[in-house]
């Protein structure tokens, strides 16, 4: 069974390589403070739409620009820019995961820091199984 033993070794080796590469490549869920500490590194930030600020999406002017503020789980709010169309049911989402990095742009002696999202995932887990009796029934 020499050859099979060799294969086993190869299998274990590849397994380890996969593990190392998964750990090496994996991004992490962080808050804005940490993402801002390492600008230009890609992170996942989980948060909610900051409803205290208007959401800017004006398809008739630019169908590929979405700006909003996101409250991370520590409660810090940051501007997010996404060059694409507004995801479906964006305003309704309970939770938003943005994947991207913090970018600082200096202009007019002012430095402007925002999060540039490459991807936006919205999570509305209970929206369809949401157990809410319709309001019409509550007040007959």
């Amino acid at each position, binding site marked *: *069974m*020499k*050859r*099979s033993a060799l*294969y086993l070794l*190869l*299998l274990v080796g*590849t*397994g380890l390589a*996969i*593990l190392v*590469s*998964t750990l090496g*490549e*994996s*991004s*992490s*869920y*962080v808050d804005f403070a940490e993402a801002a500490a390492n600008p230009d590194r*890609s*992170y*996942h930030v989980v948060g909610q739409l900051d409803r205290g600020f208007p959401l800017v999406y004006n*398809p*008739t*002017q*630019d*169908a*590929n620009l979405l700006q909003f503020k996101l409250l991370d789980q520590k409660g810090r709010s940051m501007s997010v820019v996404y*060059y*694409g*169309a*507004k995801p*479906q*049911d*964006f*305003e*309704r989402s309970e*939770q938003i*995961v943005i994947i991207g990095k913090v970018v600082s*742009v200096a*202009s*007019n002696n002012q430095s*402007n820091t*925002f999060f*540039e999202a490459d*991807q936006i*995932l919205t999570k509305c*887990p*209970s*929206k*369809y*199984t*949401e*157990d809410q*009796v*319709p309001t*019409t*029934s*509550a007040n*007959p």
Partner: protein
Amino acid sequence: MEFAGELLWPGHLGHLAVIVSFCAALMSTLSYGHSLNGHTLSRGRWEQWGRWAFGIHSVAVVTIIATLFGIIYFHRYEYHYAWSHASKALPTHYILSAFWEGQEGSFLLWIFWHMVLGWIFLAVSGRRWEAGVMSVLSLAQLMLTSMLLGTTLEIPGLMDWHIGSSPFTLLRETLQAPIFNRPDYLQWITDGNGLNPLLQNPWMVIHPPVLFLGFASCTIPFGYALTALWTKRYDAWVGLAKSWTLVAILTLGSGIIMGAAWAYESLNFGGYWAWDPVENASLLPWLLLVAALHGMHAYTKSQYSLRSTFILVLLGFLLVLYATFLTRSGILGESSVHSFTDLGLSGQLLIFLGAFVLLALVLLVLRWKEIPAREKDSEEAGSSREFWLFAGSMTLVISALQILFTTSIPVFNAIAGSNMAPPAEVVSYYNRWQLPIAVIVLLLGTVAFELRFKKSDPRLVLQWIIQITLVAVVLTLAVAYTMGIGYWSYILLIFAACFALIGNLNQMYRRRQKIMKQGGLTAHLGFALMMLGVLVSSSRKEVVSLNLNNTPLGPNFSPAQTRENVLLYESQSQTIAGYSVWYLGDSVVEPNRYYKLRFEQRDEQGKVRFSRTLYPNAQINPKMGLIASPATMHFWDHDLYMHVTQVPDPASLQSTSKEYKEPVLHYLNARGDTLMLQEYLLVFEGLKTNLDSAWSAQSTGAEVAVGAPVRVQRVDTTFQLMPVYVIRSGVEFRYPDQSAEPGIRLQLQSIDPSKQQIALAVQTTPPPPRPYVVLKMLRFPWINAVWYGSFLLVLGLSMSIVHRNRQYRNERMED
């Protein structure tokens, strides 16, 4: 309290049937299990008991399903399951989808298939393996029906266990609301919550049953393997389990492909595969079973690799359970878009998984030394087909390992309390690993057919490889050149796929006398075609709806961002991908809104050469917002795929204000000067001093009477306006002019004759809201190769099953 209008007996019946099915599954497990150990004399009697118990179990299962279906079909909204998954507007065929949308319903689907497969097994397979396989199947049924029990085990202060989640709970038992204090509450619950619109798709009627049939058929090979270990019959099971493994691969594979087709046809992430954890979870057992099948093949032909075959078959089913745990326990959380919501069953799911892992592991460890390995004297030759089959299996295992690790990141997080996230570029991460694996699998799988079992002549094989390679290289270069693929690893995969295509075709030609024996070759050919399609369609997939005239965004934004959405106003055309695309308005067929898009191509003479109308649709769902579904133009060599990404709120389109806004002063310097204003283009046509008779009343006797004719152009019309400026007896008079319908009004404010300059006060009404769609459009070249390849794969597997069954029947006749 008595509640009016409730129909309670179906719930009681259903719940009773759940309990009966659970107890009968227990009976069946114990009886069959006992028969496995019992004396030869009593064995038959215990088997009889087991069969009876399984019969009772089956009747109960059918009762559960019929009851739940009835509750949904007749809109009995006093039941939570019906209320939360169905609504009155739902067409009948989607009642089925509603049935298995929830966790309980999909468990039922699985239970149902187990039951059906159990009876097929009893009908077609020999008695010798009945006790073992049926006890494993019954144990699985026991675990599955326990998920539906919905009972609470409570010993005060010690434990408070909720077992399962019953699909028969009442709405008022599940929800807390003041309305449920009214005895007549039911008359106010007029409609259900409805089926998730994404699932209202024909594929969703067929995909889940096929997928669950696939999951269920993994249990039988597993049962064979466990029985073989238990009863120490290490040899004969392989041939028998092989047919069932083929069935499992066929059904699970079809289920996965249907899921991919559903994603492509009705979701809008722009593709058929996204390496989503839920997709991966169903792919894992499939990969393992394919590996197991090749191990079985090697074993039946040359007594090779029995131990690894045991491991692979066992792992195949255990990964089904792991997939179940991942998708149903809520552990995937934010890393997947479409897992089930948590029903609090995670503990029970872990027990389900753990019990079978333990069973398999203990038996395997106990029997490991006894499992026969091939005699030492027949030395393993590197040129033997069995060795290559084994190598191929192991490569598939590596593929599965990589998917398993990355998909399990949320599980690692849960165990270690870490906050690892999947790689940010998850698709390219998977592809980086899976691409070389696909290359190896394709090459191994093709060469293996040229090898003989035991030992082949390396010279002949090498000769064959060289011939095939030469043809494949030519084909590869042709493909890479025509498709413009220059990246070396992609070219490598194209080569591997071409090599496999030609190699398999060559083999098929040489064996053309025995068509029905060519299932394996057909499946391999399909796989190669599929890989070619996957590579070309995903590496050359391009967004064709590029927005080339963006408004500048200011200095804060990094330039050169890809802009992948195009704004299309109604009745205005844009050129996309060589087509003139017109948005021609929308129509509503509840619950969908269809956006009519016309695609045209004209030749030099302006004659229409190509024209087609497509209707990408969207639901503007009160609960979920805009849910867009794509429309696709199919061509033989590519697809054009599009969906709307934004549409205006229909209500906003109706608010048309006719009020003129505040005037704004504009200066026009000379004749021919132009001014862009909202949707208007104004052209100053020069001052006019000799006004015609229409202005005689205003101009007679005036010191100055000047008109400023202005041509006003809009997309659809052109008209002329002429405001007039008059000085009479030293007093200025200004006579404005305006469009026939409220839109634009001009007033000549002042004139500087020396410069021929005029000042125009312009008033406009707010631009009428124009309907528009924001569209995203992708081009998938060669995507049909993916579907044709899958079809061949499925066809090949079916041929193998038919062939295998014929063989099996012949073997039985010989017995």
